[in-house]
């Protein structure tokens, strides 16, 4: 008889392990009162790449400066694959998550109950942030995320190559001139092409978006209907195609290929936002002083030449046990000069405008030989707002397919964009604009 009861005991034990595994959340909730016992409230913040680097430095300084809150940085991939399951399951998410601005509306649509309403803190300070930072943070008049960085775009160019080929960057005011100069440069320099972006992977999208943004391109019309076939979008694609057909591009399907093309000196320019500066500095340290920055060429003399690519927001999750502690850290990070300076050092251009007047903003960058922030702030005065919407993913995927078909020569631009409109409409449930 004794034997059987032991067996039952073992069975129950196994069961209790499984059950207790599921019920972990309830147990850890009691930790909310740690503060009173003098233990700091621990919060975690999830981000990737350069931003995670910046956060690690900021967290260290913040943790030392006070004893109430302890911040841990969680490194994740930029495809959110460790964040999404946690938000889906409603358990295990960090206190603060970084989300790309263009994805946040999608997050709000799918996880409406997962983010803390920050309106009380942020509404009175809304004007302190650049307009470009408010692309996706609000829903139904409430603010759910704080703008972190925006990403004004420029052309990074090799000064030494331009000099050798006799090109004056100040004269490259239109894309036509840019392409002519490219031909000239390629005839003088062996093994170098004028620029680089992806011609064969879905990352062609990024280059196209910068050009379309510059022209005021859009995904939806005023009524919120899908509109890919507007003039700006098509004009931007024509340029992408022309650059390819004139053989001015080193094909760089992935990020690593782009870094390699730059490090190996195979490209004379690269069109990218301010955050590229951080990568160039670390990956091509021996090219210090060789890179200059000029505004994007326009389509017509004096035409619009500003664009944004990227930028991110931070949101506090409702799963957080210490939302006030999370906010305390965000305040230090994003609403003080000290915190913003750390971000700036890593090439993240703040969305918080008071920082633009600070001294550190004008600090000359050792690698480039001029103040990056200053130069880029001149390129962030009039960036056309781009609305990404709740269905951005459903909208961008068909466009990526269309770009492939166009660059393959399988379809012409109009036809491919029309088909993409239909596909995007089907995936998102939004009608196509007439």
């Amino acid at each position, binding site marked *: *008889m004794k034997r*059987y009861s032991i*067996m*039952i005991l*073992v*069975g129950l034990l*196994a*069961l209790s392990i*499984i059950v207790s595994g599921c019920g972990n959340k309830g147990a850890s909730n009691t930790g909310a009162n740690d503060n009173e016992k003098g233990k700091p409230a621990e919060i975690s913040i999830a981000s990737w790449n350069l931003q995670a680097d910046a956060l690690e430095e900021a967290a260290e300084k913040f943790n030392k400066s006070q004893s109430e809150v302890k911040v841990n940085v969680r490194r994740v991939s930029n*495809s*959110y*694959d460790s964040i*999404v399951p946690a*938000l*889906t399951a*409603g358990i295990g998410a960090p206190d603060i998550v970084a989300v790309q601005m263009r994805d946040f509306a*999608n997050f709000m*649509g*799918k*996880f*409406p*109950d*997962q983010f803390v309403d920050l309106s009380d803190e942020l509404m009175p300070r809304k004007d302190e942030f650049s307009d470009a930072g408010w692309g996706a943070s609000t829903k139904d008049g409430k603010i759910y995320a704080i703008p972190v960085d925006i990403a004004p775009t420029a052309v990074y160019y090799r000064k030494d190559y331009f000099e050798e080929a006799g090109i004056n960057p100040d004269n490259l005011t239109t894309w036509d001139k840019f392409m002519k100069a490219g031909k000239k440069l390629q005839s003088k320099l062996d093994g170098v092409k004028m620029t680089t972006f992806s*011609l*064969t*992977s*879905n990352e062609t999208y990024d280059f196209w978006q910068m050009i379309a943004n510059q022209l005021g391109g859009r995904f939806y019309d005023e009524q919120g209907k899908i509109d890919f076939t507007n003039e700006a979008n098509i004009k931007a694609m024509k340029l992408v195609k022309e650059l390819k057909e004139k053989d001015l591009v080193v*094909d760089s*399907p*992935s990020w690593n*290929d782009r870094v*390699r093309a730059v490090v190996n000196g195979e490209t004379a320019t690269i069109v990218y936002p301010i955050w590229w500066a951080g990568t160039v500095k670390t990956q091509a340290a021996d090219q210090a002083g060789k890179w200059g920055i000029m505004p994007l060429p326009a389509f017509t003399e004096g035409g619009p030449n500003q664009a944004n690519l990227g930028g991110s927001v931070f949101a506090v999750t409702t799963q957080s046990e210490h939302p006030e502690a999370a906010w305390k850290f965000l305040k230090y990070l994003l609403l003080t000069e000290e915190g913003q300076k750390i971000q700036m050092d890593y090439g993240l251009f703040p969305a918080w405008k008071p920082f633009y007047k600070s001294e550190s903003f004008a600090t000359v960058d050792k690698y480039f030989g001029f103040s990056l922030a200053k130069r880029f702030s001149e390129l962030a005065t009039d960036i056309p707002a781009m609305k990404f919407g709740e*269905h951005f*993913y*459903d909208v961008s*995927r068909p466009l990526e*397919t269309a770009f*492939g*078909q166009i660059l*393959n020569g399988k379809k012409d631009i109009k036809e491919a964009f029309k088909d993409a409109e239909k*596909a995007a409409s*089907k*995936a998102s449930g939004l009608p196509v604009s007439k």
Partner: protein
Amino acid sequence: MKDFFRKNMKNISPYLFIAPFFMLFIVFFLYPIFYSLVLSFSKWTSGGLEFVGIQNYLYLLTDPVFWKSLLNTGQILVIQVPIMLLLACVVAVLINSKHTKYKALFRLGFFVPVIIDLVTYSLVFSLMFNERYGIINQFLTSIGMKGIPWFSNGIWAKVMIAIAMTWRWTGYNSIIILSGLQSIPGTIYEAATIDGANKIDTFFKITIPMLKPVLLFCMILSTIGTLQLFTEPYMLTKGGPNNETLTAIYYIYDRAFGSFKFGLASAGAYIVTTIIGILSYIQLKVSDGGEI
């Protein structure tokens, strides 16, 4: 009363022993299987589920990109699996040969790719196949040939994926086939040799037919594995160029974790499972269940 209790407890003990497995099975298999079935008929947000009928299935069956992903998977399946299994047979026969020394070493060598970390191996492959700096294209250009557009041409990208998969799984299959080979009685070969059959004859007329049940097993496993292909395209090509290496599972992953359409993704998973079921059934039927 006591006897009754004792008798029944005796019957219950085996169930208790397997209970832990079944509890895990219920939590990690049965529940997800049924929940995803429910999901596949719904639209999901973190707020709850909304029943939408067969809308998800209709969407998938009329989405050209989903068909493209199935076609890609099919193409890789038809080309890669037979080549890999043939290679695996050859490797197994060579290892099994009387003249081969250090058999354990060879067995290990061919099996090692299976246990290497997926990410590491994909990284190495992406470096080797890189169009401009990779060792393969460097070699080709050094002997005067043109570099192969592994990443920018759809056909070559598929070939690269197939090569990567073949490298990883050939050894695994050859170990299974090797165990099959060792169960073929040597007397049959002796008899054939006396009748004047050469090595090639015995391979095709004795070895292959005798291996039928083992080969069927390998074939079904490889078919299932290939239909679930995800890691290689995810790590190497990101489904590119232009969706040419987008596989069915990659498509499903993309919908689930890219646009959070978990309902759609679940429906896709059920479609793929159905295809796997049908293909396995056909393979079993055509080969008479592996009877020799």
